[in-house]
């Protein structure tokens, strides 16, 4: 058992090789199913680690209440965020903790199938999971069927309706859901989708209970979480921290630039925060007041001297290219936003006009896609305008700042693929 209040939890006993099933069971104790799982989950206050931060118990209860003999538990380890590495780190440390959590959730909702989804572009993790599943298959024949699925890696492929669409019909395209909450289905079977790290937390709560779980974190945001720190760091790292640790101390632990200009929180569909707020506790209750959120646990550190306009422009251009191009406002709107940002980045003559147009277009596009991909981009842009206010104003007044000519960038994006090269199935 892990001592109450001790860190790490999710990465407990981790080494450079994934724990085998027997190593895992001797480090964490055997996993047993109990009837009070949902109550424990509810009392733990766990919220999702995939981005939206919704209470996990509430989602599980909704699916548990659905009728149907066949249900699916879907583990989302797609990790579409380019700056996120935490699901990979977790599954490379201890795939069995994630699988335990998936089994607990399956038993709560009454699922007879568990689908674990990892992007096929990540062969290391696929390999770890294949081995872990093989170990489990020799253990017992009871319980739900565990199956590995490998959709293509795309930003929106990890969006839950796109993931379900892929499992149902081999296409990673989001679905239209006019009313929320919407019950996602594979065939006729209701499906619960939870992020891999969320499942690992459930793996802890199912073993040790809610009050143990709450020995870290705050009342509103209990537990620990994984963060992927990239940008101005010695080397990109994934660390496990107690929720509510200040951003400043997270940067310190990650050996990041202690005096940056701004940090990006959540991911490329996330929010920028000016460095004057670094003493804020890292949890949604505290960050909400600043209009930002922890999202998928990404922290990108941007140093002073870097150009916030260029950082923003590069990400938005890539995100626009990752649109699934099903909805007009997203397919046409996001490239238009990227183009406005390009004008500003070049500090061209119409940069000021482009800035006004950018702000207006954000208002026009928001909320009009079938999925929240465009809304994420808009959140990213709006918070950039605040966090990098000085950079934007230099550029719109006709001077490209010195940082914008640098060749080093901090928010890294994969190289742009041509539209006909994008793989969706």
């Amino acid at each position, binding site marked *: 058992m892990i001592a109450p209040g001790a860190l790490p939890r999710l990465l407990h006993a981790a080494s450079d090789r994934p724990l085998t099933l027997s190593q895992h069971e001797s480090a964490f104790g055997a996993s047993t199913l109990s009837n009070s799982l949902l109550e424990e989950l509810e009392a733990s206050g766990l919220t999702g680690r995939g981005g939206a931060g919704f209470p996990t118990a509430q989602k599980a209860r909704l699916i548990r209440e659905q009728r149907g003999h066949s249900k699916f538990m879907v583990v989302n380890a797609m990790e579409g965020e380019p700056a996120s590495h935490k699901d990979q780190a977790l599954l490379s440390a201890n795939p069995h903790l994630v699988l335990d959590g998936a089994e607990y959730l399956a038993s709560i909702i009454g699922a007879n199938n568990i689908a674990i989804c990892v992007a096929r572009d990540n062969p290391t993790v696929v390999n770890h999971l294949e081995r872990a599943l093989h170990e489990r298959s020799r253990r017992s024949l009871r319980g739900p069927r565990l199956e590995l699925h490998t959709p293509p890696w795309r930003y929106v492929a990890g969006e839950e309706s796109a993931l379900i669409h892929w499992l149902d019909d081999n296409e990673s395209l989001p679905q239209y859901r006019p009313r929320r909450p919407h019950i996602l289905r594979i065939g006729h079977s209701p499906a619960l989708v939870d992020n891999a790290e969320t499942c690992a937390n459930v793996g802890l709560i199912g073993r040790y209970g809610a009050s143990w779980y709450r020995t870290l974190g705050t009342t509103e945001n209990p537990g620990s979480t994984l963060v992927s720190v990239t940008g101005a760091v010695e080397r990109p790292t994934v660390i496990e921290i107690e929720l509510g640790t200040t951003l400043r101390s997270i940067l310190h632990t990650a050996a990041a630039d202690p005096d940056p200009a701004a940090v990006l929180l959540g991911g490329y569909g996330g929010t920028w925060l000016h460095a004057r707020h670094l003493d804020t506790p890292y949890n949604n209750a505290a960050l909400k007041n600043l209009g930002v959120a922890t999202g998928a646990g990404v922290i990108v550190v941007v140093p002073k001297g870097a150009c916030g306009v260029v950082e923003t422009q590069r990400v938005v251009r890539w995100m626009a290219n990752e649109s699934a191009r099903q909805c007009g406002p997203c397919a046409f709107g996001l490239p238009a936003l990227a183009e406005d940002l390009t004008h500003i980045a070049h500090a061209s003559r119409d940069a000021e006009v482009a800035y006004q147009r950018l702000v207006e277009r954000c208002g026009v596009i928001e909320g009009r896609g*079938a999925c929240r991909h465009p809304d994420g981009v808009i959140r990213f842009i709006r918070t950039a305008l605040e966090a990098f206010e000085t950079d934007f104003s230099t550029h719109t007044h006709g001077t490209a700042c010195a940082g914008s000519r640098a060749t080093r960038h901090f928010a890294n994006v994969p190289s742009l693929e041509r539209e006909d090269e994008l793989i969706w199935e």
Partner: protein
Amino acid sequence: MGMRRRSGTFVLQVNPILCDGFGHCAELAPELVKTDEWGYPIIVNEPVPLANVAAYESARYAERGCPRQALHIQRFSEKKPH
């Protein structure tokens, strides 16, 4: 026919995946739909009272007239405050 007292509200919703952006709906229901610079509909998203018969009729025209059947009227019943 005759006058019926209608309580509750509605919104016109578009399925953006089906919509082709030719903007037919903006002509059929101008009080509810504008188009953006690419021709896709921007629909009033505050609920409109069903008692606004003209707006409701327009919404019905748009719903029926949409060539992609991308529009849908979502009704909300409301308990009238006494």
